[in-house]
């Protein structure tokens, strides 16, 4: 029980924190992009994440005979939830853009209630699970400690998705339009861009990211009612710390929250959750627009 044990344990904890950070990043990045463009704080984001996990379970059971069932599910489940997100934006959310924030906020909360019961109605209250894909089963040994292969996959996948997204935002026409809309949607509309359609696309992308988070987290957690409201406050914290609407801010915010959770548990098991909120409060007091965000003009 020397230093060596402590150090390797620390590394494993850190890696666990990184894995969690990548999950939170996927979910929070969708929340952040929706806030950045639509200026809506989407409580239902956690519900889309939960639906992503349930749909993954559903797809895995449908393709039970295929060796690639997990990957098929990861492909299909987020797409189906993204479609649902697009449908919600087109038919309902759209009508509330002219209203005040409180109305929009409560509408997304109404969605939390409705989608939560919808999932409970279809999949019941039992805990469901998804097994890891064959290739990522088992563990590797890091400093004498077992660490799941799947978690390593996630730690690599997170930054890949971040870079891919960053590149798409920087280089593609849609990416440029989304960034422009976050800055000044009136001018963008005046330039002849269909801002209505852009909003739908952004909401679909955000929903897809939430559901992708849910799909990827499904092998390492239990899928159950209540996972929607558990995740949403963490996603809010990440987005606030990084800066609402800031893409890389969300990435760093997720890293901070993930590592504080995993390391804080070693140092102050009881205080780590309080510590997270303290960071959130300090950021809001000193830099309400977050670490990497920019102040809203309005």
């Amino acid at each position, binding site marked *: 029980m020397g230093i060596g044990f402590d150090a390797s344990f620390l590394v494993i904890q850190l890696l666990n924190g990184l894995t969690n950070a990548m999950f939170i990043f996927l979910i929070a990045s969708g929340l952040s992009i929706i806030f950045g463009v639509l*200026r809506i*704080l989407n409580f239902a984001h956690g519900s889309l994440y939960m639906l992503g996990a349930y749909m993954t379970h559903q797809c895995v059971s449908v393709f039970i005979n295929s060796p690639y069932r997990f990957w098929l599910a990861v492909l299909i489940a987020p797409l189906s939830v993204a479609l649902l997100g697009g449908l919600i934006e087109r038919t*309902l959310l759209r*009508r*509330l853009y002219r*209203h005040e*924030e*409180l*109305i929009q*906020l*409560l*509408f997304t*909360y*109404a*969605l*939390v*209630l*409705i989608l*939560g*019961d*919808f999932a*409970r*109605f279809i999949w019941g209250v039992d805990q469901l699970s998804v097994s890891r894909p064959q290739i990522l089963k088992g563990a590797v040994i890091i400093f004498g400690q077992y660490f799941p292969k799947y978690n390593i996959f996630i730690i690599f996948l997170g930054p890949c998705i971040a870079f891919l997204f960053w590149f798409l935002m920087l280089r593609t026409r849609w990416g440029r339009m989304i960034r422009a809309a976050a800055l000044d949607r009136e001018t963008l509309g005046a330039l002849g861009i269909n801002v209505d359609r852009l909003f739908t696309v952004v909401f679909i992308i955000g929903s897809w990211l939430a559901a992708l988070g849910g799909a990827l987290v499904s092998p390492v957690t239990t899928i159950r009612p209540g996972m929607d*409201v558990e995740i949403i*406050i963490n996603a*809010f*914290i990440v987005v*606030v710390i990084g800066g*609402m609407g800031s893409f890389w801010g969300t990435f760093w915010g997720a890293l901070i929250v993930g590592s504080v959770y995993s390391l804080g548990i070693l140092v102050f098991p*009881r*205080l780590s*959750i*309080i510590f997270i*909120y*303290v960071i*959130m*409060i300090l950021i*809001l*007091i000193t830099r*309400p627009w977050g670490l990497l965000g920019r102040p809203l003009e309005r």
Partner: protein
Amino acid sequence: MSKENWVFIAGLILIAAIPLTGSRFYIFLFTDIMIFGLFAVSLNLLIGYTGLVSFGHAAYFGIGCYTCALLITKANLPFAIAFAATGVFGAAAAVIIGFFCVRLTKIYFAMLTLAFSQIVWAIVFKWNALTGGDTGIYGIDFPKFLDSKIKYFYFVLFIVAVSLVVLRKIVNSPFGRILATIRDNPERTEFIGINVKLFQLIAFIISGFFSAIAGGLFAVFNHSVFPDFCHWPISAEVLIMTLLGGMYNFFGPMVGAGALLYLRLESTSYTEYWPFILGTILCLILFFAPGGIVGFIQDKIVRRGSSK
């Protein structure tokens, strides 16, 4: 006397007559409604009258609950002192939290109130030695002089009625008018030489005070308190009550509390999907009657009156 005053007095008399029915169901339901109604009305002082959307009002309600519960069960203080302390503790927390929150606007204000209330929840949840953590605190008995459900009902009626009278005096006073001006246009209010932040802070403190009073009433009514009372879904629920009843009317939130709690109690005997029902009702209100139930009724009456 204004029409609203008559409605208020008529409502008080009707509610006061409820124990005459002898129905334990209605005594329970209306005690609950009055307590949450007071909570929602005091939240609406911020939302409807000052234009500040607090998403962390569970904090003050929870502080009220735990102040009352801890002072009675752990400090063995008499109920009167414990109950009086709830308001003081709620207001004190609101001074500290509000001081930082009023510096922010809109969504940032909502996020900061949420963060502070989550801290209150986390402390209550984790401080096992004091609060009992997840298990909460049990065995908060009715005080000697209020040893039955009917007596406690009238006590709640008295406290809530007095609180509502005070709150109405506040919103109809020059102070209340300034709050409404701030809600409609904070920049311009600042320009005419009013310290907007100070007025917002005072409204925040008053709101925290009465929310904590509601919490104190609830702790004894429920005989037990849990960390969930400070958790953010309670903040969301009281916001829904406010909007459901109507945030542009003083008694709207009270009506909203009544509607929500009655429907919940009724529906849970038929279905387990109450959240689905609530979400659907909330959507209908948001899309078709943003003024809430009271706003909708007023709209109908005014329209009918003007067409005749």
